[in-house]
């Protein structure tokens, strides 16, 4: 699954950041999952639990925070949610799952029809916070 590579990215980035901060081991990693990308939390968690063995993240807890997706039109300033965007077709959801920016290929501002909008929040995966023990 493609979530595996995202899990790998989260682990490598957390470990790198921990080393930068002189942490001896990682205790907790808070990961935000944006609604737009539709990442399967269970698969990321499974990936992290498998990949963390033998690293300074071996005893870390991975906490997931789900973030709702909202959009803002750069043309008319309208704001709307992913639910309101009403994306139902499976292949479109899959496309956005792989590369969230392709949402611009499929939806427009519901008020003015502009393709020029931003994903204000809830785009994809990022690390919100790491905590650990100092050296």
């Amino acid at each position, binding site marked *: *699954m*493609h979530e*595996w*590579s*995202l899990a*790998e*990215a*989260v682990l*490598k*980035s*957390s470990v*790198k*950041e921990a080393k930068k901060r002189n942490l001896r081991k990682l205790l907790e990693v808070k990961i935000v999952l944006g609604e737009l990308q539709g990442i399967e939390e269970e698969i990321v968690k499974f990936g992290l639990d498998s990949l963390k063995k033998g690293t300074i993240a071996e005893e870390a807890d991975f906490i997931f925070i789900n973030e709702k997706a909202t959009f803002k039109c750069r043309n008319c300033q309208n704001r709307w949610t992913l639910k309101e965007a009403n994306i139902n077709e499976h*292949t*479109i959801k*899959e*496309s*956005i799952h*792989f*590369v*969230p*920016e*392709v949402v*611009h*290929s*499929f939806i427009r501002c519901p008020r003015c029809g502009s*393709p*020029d909008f*931003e994903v204000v929040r809830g*785009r*994809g*995966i*990022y*690390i*919100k916070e*790491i905590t650990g023990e100092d050296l």
Partner: protein
Amino acid sequence: MIDPREVVSREKFAAIKYIIPVVSGKGGVGKSVVSTALSLALADRCKTGLLDLDFWGASAHILLNASNEFPEEEKGILPEEIGGVKFMSVAYYTQDNPLPIRGREYSDAFLELMAVTRWDDTECLVIDMPPGMADPFLDLLQYVKNGNFLIITTSSILSSNIVSKTLKILKELDLKIFGLIENMCLTEDGNSRIRELANSFNVKHLGNIPYYQDLDINLGSWQDFLSTDFFQKIKEISTRLEL
């Protein structure tokens, strides 16, 4: 906030022995056709990939007649293999729709594709770049530290003027340049201005490619593309790349 895609993207580029960004600065000089032909030509010599980073004008998928299906998933995304070349493009996900995105969104899509694409044992990655010096070019400079640039120009003064600016930036940053190709030449020897341009930047003039009027009828099937004089010319030029 830590973006987890940055570390792995850098690692993935760094793990590939030869990265060949095909750039110009100018649009319409044949970067996509050269990139695609070059990747097919190099596939005989080493494990080669082609990454289409021209998200606004993706066209390598047409030249390779890529599948309409999503690439396979296996602990990441496995690029489709076409004619011995591992190929990745955003076109798999736009479903042939326009992609009206700004630079910030371009950078996000660029990182996403790099973070999840498995190039595995690829030794040589050809990158088809969009024209200009905006976010795509700057992202490339930020994440690819081991590039060997290939410069494409036509004989036109409009092209050579813009290409000289691209060369100026690449030289200023002390980046490696494989050389320059003069494309769509109307005379056998090309234009002396282009040779002078290459000399002035101490860059190899790798060759002239004539303007082939019938090339277009052989585009859309990579097998037919291999039989063109254009492809043979690129193959000959590819032997001059020091891999």
